[in-house]
C-alpha cells in the first residue's frame, strides 16, 4: 500500500512534467495547427539557460545569500530567452511556410529541432551539465513515503499555469484574438487582429512554458543534456493528442494519464514495456474517441 501511494506520487510528478511541456505544444498547435517538433528543443534550451544562469549566480556567490531571487531570476531569464529564440525561429523557419502544405512546415520544424539540439551540443559540450544547487532536493517522509519539495513545486506550477493559461485564453482580449486567429486568419485580420503578432506571442508563451519545464526538470533530476528534449517532446506530443490537441485542460489531463500509465506500468507490470502501455492507452482512447478526451470535432484536416 505504501509503495502504491509512492508510485502515485511518482506518477503525478512525471505526469506534471509531461503536462508542462504539453501545454506549450498544444497552444502552438491550437493557433497554427503545426506539430512543432522543435518544442522539445526549446525545453532543453530552457534547461540549459537555467543551468547557465544558476551557475553564474553561484559563481558570483549570490546563491547562498538570495536563493529565491536567483531562482526566480533564472526562471525569468530562461523563459525570456526561449521566447526570444522561439519568435526568431518562427519568423525564419515557419512563417514563410504558413501558406504551404502543413507537411512542409512539419519538415522545417524537424530541421529546426535537429539544428537546435546539435547547436546545444556544440556550444555546451557533449557532457551532461549538473545543476549547481541542491535547492529543494530535500523532502520529507510520511511513513516510508518520500515526497520532495520539488515534486510539490512541479505539481503546483503545473496547476497554476493551467489556470493562468485558461484565464488568458478565455478571459482576456489577447486570448480572444488567439482564438479568433486559430479559427480563421483572414477573418480575424479583417477585424483588425494582427495574426502575425498573435502567432509570435503564442510561440513566445509556448516556448516560455517549455523553458520553465526545462528548469524544473533540470532541478528535479539534477542535470541537463543536449538531447533531453527529444523523448519528452514525443511524450508530451502524445499527451497533447490524447487530451485533444489544442485544448489546454486536455493537455494537462493527457500528460497526467501518460505519466501515471508509465509509472504504474513500470511499477506493477513490466519496466521495459511501460511505453507500450502508454501507447496502447493512447490508441485505445483514440479508437473510441478519435479526437482525444477533450477535443472537439475537427474539420476534415488532411495532410
Amino acid at each position: 500500500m505504501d509503495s502504491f501511494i509512492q508510485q502515485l506520487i511518482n506518477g503525478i510528478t512525471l505526469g506534471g512534467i509531461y503536462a508542462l511541456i504539453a501545454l506549450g505544444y498544444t497552444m502552438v498547435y491550437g493557433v497554427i495547427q503545426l506539430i512543432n517538433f522543435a518544442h522539445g528543443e526549446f525545453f532543453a534550451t530552457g534547461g540549459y539557460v537555467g543551468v547557465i544562469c544558476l551557475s553564474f549566480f553561484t559563481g558570483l556567490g549570490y546563491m547562498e545569500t538570495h536563493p529565491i531571487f536567483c531562482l526566480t531570476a533564472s526562471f525569468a531569464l530562461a523563459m525570456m530567452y526561449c521566447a526570444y529564440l522561439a519568435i526568431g525561429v518562427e519568423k525564419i523557419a515557419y512563417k514563410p511556410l504558413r501558406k504551404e502544405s502543413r507537411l512542409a512546415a512539419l519538415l522545417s520544424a524537424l530541421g529546426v529541432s535537429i539544428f537546435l539540439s546539435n547547436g546545444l551540443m556544440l556550444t555546451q559540450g557533449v557532457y551532461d551539465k549538473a545543476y549547481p544547487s541542491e535547492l529543494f532536493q530535500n523532502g520529507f517522509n510520511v511513513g516510508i513515503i518520500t515526497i520532495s519539495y520539488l515534486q510539490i513545486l512541479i505539481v503546483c506550477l503545473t496547476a497554476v499555469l493551467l489556470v493562468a493559461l485558461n484565464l488568458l485564453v478565455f478571459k482576456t482580449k489577447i486570448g480572444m484574438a488567439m482564438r479568433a486567429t486559430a479559427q480563421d486568419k483572414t477573418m480575424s485580420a479583417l477585424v483588425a487582429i494582427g495574426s502575425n503578432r498573435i502567432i509570435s506571442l503564442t510561440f513566445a508563451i509556448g516556448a516560455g512554458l517549455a523553458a520553465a519545464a526545462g528548469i524544473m526538470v533540470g532541478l528535479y533530476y539534477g542535470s541537463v543534456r543536449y538531447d533531453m528534449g527529444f523523448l519528452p517532446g514525443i511524450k508530451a506530443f502524445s499527451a497533447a493528442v490524447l487530451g485533444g490537441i489544442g485544448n489546454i485542460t486536455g493537455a494537462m489531463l493527457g500528460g497526467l494519464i501518460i505519466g501515471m500509465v508509465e509509472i504504474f506500468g513500470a511499477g506493477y507490470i513490466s519496466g521495459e514495456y511501460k511505453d507500450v502501455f502508454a501507447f496502447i492507452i493512447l490508441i485505445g482512447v483514440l479508437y473510441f474517441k478519435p479526437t482525444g478526451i477533450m477535443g472537439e470535432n475537427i474539420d476534415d484536416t488532411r495532410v
Partner: protein
Amino acid sequence: MIQEFKKIWKQYAITMLWLLGILWPLLGIHPDGTLSFRQTFTVWSYILAGTFICFIFYIINKSDNFKLLTEPIANTSQKLNNSLQSMPSWIWKSALLFGAVIYPIATGRYATDVAINVLLYVSLGLGLYVVVGLAGMLDLGHIAFYGVGAYTYAILNVKYGMGFWVCFPFAGLSACIAGCIVGYPTLKMRGDYLAIVTLGFGEIVRIILNNWMSLTNGPNGILGVKSIGILRPVMENGFTFEMFWVTKLELFYYFALGLAILTIIAVTRLGSSRIGRAWESIREDETAAELMGVNTFYYKLLAYAMGAIFAGFAGALFAARMRFVSPESFTFLESVMLLCMVVLGGMNSIPGIILGVIALIALPEVFRGLESYRMLVFGSTMVIMMLFRPSGLIAAKRKKMMETKQPEERG
C-alpha cells in the same frame, strides 16, 4: 535595385543581431561568475562571414546579375528538357537504367554502399508514398514495417534455416499483416490523431523487438543472417547447380536496384489504376469519396497493406545485406526521416521521392567530413530546402494542372 533590397538587407541585419543575442548567453556566461564576449564574437563573425557570402550570392542571383552564367545553363537545360520530351521515353529511361547498371563499376565501394542504402530507401519511401502521398494519411511509424520485414527474414533464416527467396514473400506478408493491424484501428482517425497513433505503433514494434528476448534476441540483435543465395550452374561434373552467396557489395547492389525498379513500376501502375484514383479521392475529400461509392474502409486498409509490403521487402533485403539486424535501425527518428524524404521530394511525384531519398541519405554522408558539425549543417539544410522549395523538390504534375490559378511558385 538598391531600394528593392533594402528590406532584405534590413531583415538580414535583424536576423544576425538576433543570432548574436541567441549565442551570447550560451557562450558568454561562465559558471565562475564572469562574462566574456570574445568567443561569442569570434563564432558570430564566422557565421556572419559565411552567411554574408551566401547572401551576396543570393542577392546577385535575385537581381539577375548571374544571367551571364545561369542563362546558358538554363538554356541548355531547357533544350535538353525539350529534346528529352520530344524523345520517346524509353530512350532516356534506358539511358538512366544503363547509368544505374554501370554505377557500381564506375564508382568505389563507399559510393556503392550509399547507393544500396538509397535504393532500399527508395522502396521504403515509395511504400510510404502510397500511404501519405496517394491516400493522404500521415504515417509516422512506417519504419516498423521495414523492421518487421527485416526480422521476419532474419528469424526464419537463422532459426529455421530458410533461404532468402523462400523468406522474401513471407517478409512481405508479415509486414502486410502488421500493416493491416495498424490500419484497422486507425481508420476512423484523421490528420494528427492518425499521425500519433502510427507513431505509437512504430514505437510499440520497436520496443517489442527490443524486449522479446526468446524471439528477437533483444538488443543484441540477430547475428549470422545469410546473404542472398542464388543457384549457379556449374559445368565441371556434368551440369549441376551450386549455391552461390551474394556477399560482394557490387552484386548486392543489383538486387537492391531490382527491388527499387520493381517498386517504382508497381507504384506507378498502382497510382494510375482504379485503386490509385480511389486513394486520391480519399485524400482529397474522404466524405465526398464515400458518397461517390468508394469503399473507404477497404481502400484505406489496402493503402496500409501495400505500403507495408514494399517496406517488408526492403527490410528483408536490408537484413540480408547487413547480415545482422538490431532494433537500433528502426527508431522513431528513422520513420520521421523517411517521411521527410517523401515530403522533401514533392509528396506526389515518384521522381521527386527518389530525389528526396537521395538528398536525405546522401547529405549526411556528404557532410561526413564535418564530423560533429554534420547534423547541425544537415538540420539547417533541411530548413533551407523547405524554405526555397516548400512543395518539394519536384512538385506533382497533376496538382500543378489543377492549381493554375495560384500565383507563381516561390523560390
